[in-house]
């Protein structure tokens, strides 16, 4: 029994770590899509900022500098997307694809140019990366059965970005639903013409949304390279940007529901790692690939309207053309 509990707690603990970048990226996507800009370039922004974070942290010896550079790089990509999809009214999906491919190529070329290696950056030592934090009181609560284990393994012992991710979600909720900017953001994604008529800048609002998304993606990418891992490796984001996109849809563009979806997908990922090669009673061995594919299957089923209905913001993917 205790063994099962510990296993469960360890899996949940891993889920927290796995779902952190998903949370940052899906919140970034939430801002973009709520403003009416589809962002399938989340993956590219994560990858690029992961690489820049690892490079800067290694060169300057500080994870904070790595984080700053990562945010900067991600914002540049976000602005390229903005230029294409807002100012020049191009196809937002094509622009997103371009960003993903650019990131994939640039990270490979720059690792070679800067570090003379194909696709990896130097390993970060000690405090060059974000280390896990032991919360106060672990020693005291540890004596309490069950609760002690939960506090020690599950709640304490993550790095600062994990806590930041979970703090970001209520903040996003507050911004989107309780501030003037949030109201305008939602309006511009549903009915840009009304916003324009009210004398507000549709383009300005959309740029702001993309910039916030750029910052969030930058933190997410930095987390992957310099908190969860200790260096950048080739294609290390491995589709997490797309899983975040799936979580965004699965959570129907609502911060808390998206958080739940992120955690579910993170849990599935952690479970896939733990179940590798394990033979379960009755069912036998579940193929890891099936568990890994589950987020995608679930999203397809949801999108098809078989479990609830996911309706994106109305003006999504449409460039706004001002009438003269």
């Amino acid at each position, binding site marked *: 029994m205790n063994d099962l509990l510990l296993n469960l707690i360890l899996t949940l603990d891993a889920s927290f770590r796995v779902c952190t970048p998903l949370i940052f990226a899906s919140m970034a996507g939430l801002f973009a899509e709520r403003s009416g800009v589809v962002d399938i370039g989340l993956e590219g922004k994560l990858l690029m900022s992961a690489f820049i974070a690892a490079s800067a942290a290694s060169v300057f010896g500080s994870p904070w500098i790595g984080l700053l550079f990562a945010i900067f790089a991600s914002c540049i990509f976000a602005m390229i997307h903005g230029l294409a999809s807002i100012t020049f009214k191009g196809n937002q999906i094509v622009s997103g694809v371009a*960003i993903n491919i650019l990131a*994939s190529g640039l990270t490979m070329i720059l690792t070679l140019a800067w570090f003379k290696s194909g696709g990896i950056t130097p390993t970060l030592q000690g405090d060059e990366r974000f280390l896990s934090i032991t919360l106060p009181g672990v020693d005291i609560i540890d004596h309490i059965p069950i609760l002690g284990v939960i506090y020690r393994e599950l709640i304490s012992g993550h790095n600062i970005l994990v806590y930041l991710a979970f703090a970001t979600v209520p903040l996003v909720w507050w911004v989107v639903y309780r501030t003037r900017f949030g109201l305008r953001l939602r309006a511009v994604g549903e009915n840009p013409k009304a916003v324009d008529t009210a004398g507000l800048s549709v383009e300005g609002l959309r740029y702001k949304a993309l910039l916030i998304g750029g910052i969030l993606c930058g933190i997410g990418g930095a987390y992957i390279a310099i908190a969860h891992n200790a260096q950048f490796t080739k294609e290390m984001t491995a589709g997490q940007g*797309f899983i975040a996109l799936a979580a965004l849809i699965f959570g129907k563009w609502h911060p808390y529901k998206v958080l739940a979806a992120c955690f579910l997908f993170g849990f599935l990922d952690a479970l896939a790692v733990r179940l590798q090669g394990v033979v379960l009673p009755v069912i036998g061995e579940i193929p890891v690939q099936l568990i890994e594919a589950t987020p995608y299957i679930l999203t397809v089923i949801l999108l098809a309207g078989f479990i609830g209905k996911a309706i994106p913001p109305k003006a999504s993917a449409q460039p706004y053309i001002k009438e003269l």
Partner: protein
Amino acid sequence: MTRDRRLSWINGLLLPLFNVLTAFLATAVVFILIDVNPIEATKILIYGAFGYEEGIGYTLYYTTNFIFTGLAVAVAFHAGLFNIGGEGQAYVGGLGTALVALYIDPTLSAWLIIPLGISGGLLFGAMWAIIPAYLQAYRGSHIVITTIMFNFLASALMVYLLVHVLREVGQMSPQSKDFPDSAWIPFVHDVFAGMGYKIAESPLNLSFIIALLFSALVWFFLWHTRWGFAIRATGKSNDAAVYSGINPKKIIVVTMCISGALAGLVGINELMGVQHRLLLDFNYGYGFGGIAVALMGRNHPIGIIIAALLFGILYQGGMDLAFEMQSVSRHIIVVMQGLVILFCGGLEYLYRPILIRFLAPIEASE
């Protein structure tokens, strides 16, 4: 020249040209940033792609894959659909081809096995596209998102099949057993040897001819058949299509099937043509490359062949460049693909305001 004529001239020729040039210029900037002389690099690249027989063979071999995926993306574009799932459709299409090659009676004639292998690729590629198409047409889910998801599903499926089902007994790496000789599409150098000419060995095989044939077929289909007309009409205006009696839902499904089938042909070049077995990631990057090819080729088969050739040159030349210059990795070609997609696609209208403003005074003086 009337204003309309002038606009179509700007949109049809000047803008694409400027866009491609900008993409190349941006690539040159990337070269300078990594301390490589772009002119020197271009020379090596072009020599690598054209300078010697083997290089030409490789160039056309890569071109073949890009023609297939470029056509796939273009057909969907004509119906106003964005098929971002070429990667997955190529992967699963290869499975169809491989299943034919692995399980058919190997004593049959190659004249039978190869067409069946091609059909397998077409069928499985179409199969992988039909679900997203159906969901878009009848359940309202967005084709872009579903095809992205299907790329990952294809990847998971293929890893599972290659690790657990199709792996050759006693083989450690996830790949199938070899195809029988009768399922090999002949190499071009073998064909030439048979005719008494000796040319350098390369992976170029007769799939290249098949790719050209399919380009002609796609051209005929899109511009000279009723279905082609219906597809283009739906892409131009959904409402107009409905009024002229076209059922857009049906068009979506048919178009995506054709698109997926074309992407599914990557497997005949890679598997029946070169590798002669099923293996992981043989499709890598061609599905996304097809987007760049279709955008650059303006969704027309001739444009696609030219754009595919350009990407073939870049692929092969890029390999040689990475070999010659220690500081350049062959991934420069991926950057270039990204830049082409960005400037020919996302930033398609970058120069339009400037061009229109530039031409307005001339227009006024006429």
